[in-house]
């Protein structure tokens, strides 16, 4: 992966020095909170319900053992021994003290990490495919482009005060594993007539007005990427709304002006931007590319793997859900579930992080990924080593066999932590997972993505959940709305609300009714929840949710 050079190291050191001085001035009273807040946000430091929260960037979800061990160290030294992986593949620490933040940032800098631009009205962490470099269906590893965009966007002088936050994702396969069409800009690396370039998608987003991105440019030659991004950002910076926070994202700018108008403005700006680029960025991209070589994967007899599958039902069940085919026949992509039933989705303890780092070192070519679904991935593991990996994961509670199943829930921190939340989300996720475990039905249910947000900002991606749950405050009481039919894949779709919401003690039974309705209605085990919903529509599910309630109340 990309290693910092002298420039990067010096840049981070200077940035940290500046922020340390800003913290000192804030504590001494020489900066007001209004002056300090934008500065701390640009360095990923939030003030939450119970404490500060530091959001550390994990660029395009990529880690190596040294980085992951340092994240474990931060958790132990300056936090409560754990970290939380987010839907933008960052990690959050929920309990740091303001006075410790400069030391934490220096510790991150030691391993080439930072918290720059993980908040603020600027370009945020660039995300990508967590199977990059290992997936059989990618045309190339998308991460070098993500790294180029990261470097270009970090401290870009023109784009530090955008109307609102800006999120970019890069993929390189038809399969969208990065929720690309829910980003402000989505880039898909494609090949046309033998040339590599990008589909440029614009205006996707979640929040209170979810939208699926639209195709801005069908084919952008590779070398034009940065000038074209600048054209889009400059256009947004100029005409994006600053009068209303809820209408400030580029999705609204596209919606209100029309895609054709936006395209015209971007294309008009483009020649100016293109002229300003000398091509040095493409030279630099070539050097970044060199850092992302897929490791040499030797031929390894996989007999041990298949024998373990035959001999051990627990291993087989885990391998069925958590091991994905690798482009190299002797290898597998291992997804480590951070969704143990009843645990907080996406949390990992320092010990667990260190164990994963060890596994990556011993069996995984020093490669670890964080996913937007709040899990971890070892993308390159020889099949022959996977039984040993599983045994090690089991010992620290990381062997839950539920990837892609109903208990692999995406949940934002919600009102247990977040100052913006209107309801709790973590206990709902815990309740659903625990109930599924009690009923022992999730393997039969199969692929089902449940996503929970604790407020309208939709950080839990509920809009694109097959089942989405949105926690709101209704007359001072937690109330949960359900949406159905969302889709986070390349066939991105926004879910539809079922009807009235459910109280905190009603939501888990409601989800249970939905799941049993699906089992009744499906054509067979091969038809997933989403497929059944798309075939049948809302009516039978709405019935399952509300008719039972009506009957129960009528009986009273």
């Amino acid at each position, binding site marked *: 992966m990309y290693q910092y050079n002298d420039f990067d190291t010096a840049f981070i050191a200077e940035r940290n020095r500046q922020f340390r001085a800003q913290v000192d001035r*804030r504590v001494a009273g020489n900066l*007001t*909170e209004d002056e300090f807040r934008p500065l701390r946000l640009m360095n990923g430091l939030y003030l*939450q319900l119970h404490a500060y929260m530091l959001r550390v960037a994990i660029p395009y979800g990529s880690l190596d053992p040294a980085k992951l061990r340092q994240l474990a160290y931060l958790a132990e030294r300056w936090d409560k021994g754990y970290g939380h992986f987010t839907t933008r593949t960052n990690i959050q620490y929920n*309990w740091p003290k*303001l006075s410790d933040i400069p030391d934490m940032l220096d510790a991150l800098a030691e391993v080439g990490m930072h918290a720059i631009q993980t908040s603020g009205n600027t370009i945020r962490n660039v995300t990508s495919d967590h199977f990059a470099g290992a997936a059989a269906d990618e045309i190339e590893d998308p991460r070098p482009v993500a790294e180029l965009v990261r470097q270009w966007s970090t401290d870009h002088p023109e784009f530090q005060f955008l109307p609102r936050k800006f999120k970019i994702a890069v993929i390189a396969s038809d399969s969208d594993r990065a929720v690309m069409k829910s980003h402000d800009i989505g880039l898909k690396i494609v090949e046309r007539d033998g040339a590599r370039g990008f589909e440029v998608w614009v205006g996707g987003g979640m929040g209170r007005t979810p939208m699926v991105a639209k195709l801005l440019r069908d084919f952008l030659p590779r070398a034009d990427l940065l000038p074209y991004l600048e054209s889009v950002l400059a256009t947004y910076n100029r005409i994006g709304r600053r009068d209303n926070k809820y209408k400030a994202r580029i999705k609204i700018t596209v919606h209100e002006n029309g895609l054709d108008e936006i395209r015209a403005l971007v294309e008009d700006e483009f020649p100016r931007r293109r002229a300003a680029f000398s091509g040095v960025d493409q030279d630099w991209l070539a050097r970044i590319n060199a850092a992302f070589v897929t490791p040499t994967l030797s031929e390894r007899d996989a007999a041990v793997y298949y024998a373990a599958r035959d001999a051990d039902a627990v291993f087989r069940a885990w391998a069925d859900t958590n091991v994905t085919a690798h482009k190299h026949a002797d290898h597998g992509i291992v997804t480590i579930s951070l969704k143990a039933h009843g645990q907080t989705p996406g949390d990992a303890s320092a010990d667990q992080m260190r164990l994963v780092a060890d596994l990556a070192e011993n069996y995984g070519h020093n490669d670890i990924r964080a996913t937007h679904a709040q899990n971890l991935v070892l993308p390159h593991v020889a099949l022959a080593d996977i039984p040993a990996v599983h045994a090690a994961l089991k010992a620290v509670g990381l062997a839950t066999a539920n990837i892609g199943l109903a208990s692999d829930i995406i949940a934002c921190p919600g009102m*247990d932590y977040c100052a913006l939340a209107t309801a709790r989300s973590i206990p709902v996720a815990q309740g659903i997972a625990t109930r599924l475990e009690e009923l022992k039905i999730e393997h039969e249910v199969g692929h089902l993505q449940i996503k929970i947000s604790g407020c309208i900002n939709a950080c839990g991606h509920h809009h694109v959940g097959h089942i989405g749950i949105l926690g709101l405050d209704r007359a*001072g*009481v937690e109330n949960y709305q359900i949406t159905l039919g969302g889709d986070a894949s390349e066939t991105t779709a926004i879910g539809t609300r079922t009807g009235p919401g459910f109280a905190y003690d009603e939501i888990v039974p409601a989800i249970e009714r939905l799941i049993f309705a699906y089992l009744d209605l499906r054509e067979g085990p091969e038809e997933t929840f989403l497929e059944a919903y798309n075939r049948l529509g809302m009516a039978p599910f709405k019935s399952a949710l509300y008719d039972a309630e009506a009957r129960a109340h009528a009986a009273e």
Partner: protein
Amino acid sequence: MAQEFTPKVVTANALIEGDVVYLTAADTWARDLAQAEVLTDEADADYRLLQAQARAGEIVGAYLADVKHGPNGPEPTHFREDFRRKGPSNLFHGKQSEGLSRA
């Protein structure tokens, strides 16, 4: 016609530690809601809030939170304030683990 003013406390987050604090009648910042000064007069509450907001060297984000009178001091009227004074519901962290919870 003005709405009736309901009891409130001044609450904020401590600048360094980041944890939830409440303004007491003695002008100190207490970690325990039971020690908070309950404000029942609107003008008084506005004034206390202004005073709190001026103490930027000690706290961040001061505001007035609704409370009701309880046998052991003020109690939250909204679940958000209940979480603020106790801590998260998924882990035994925050004030509940420091023995300061009244729940």
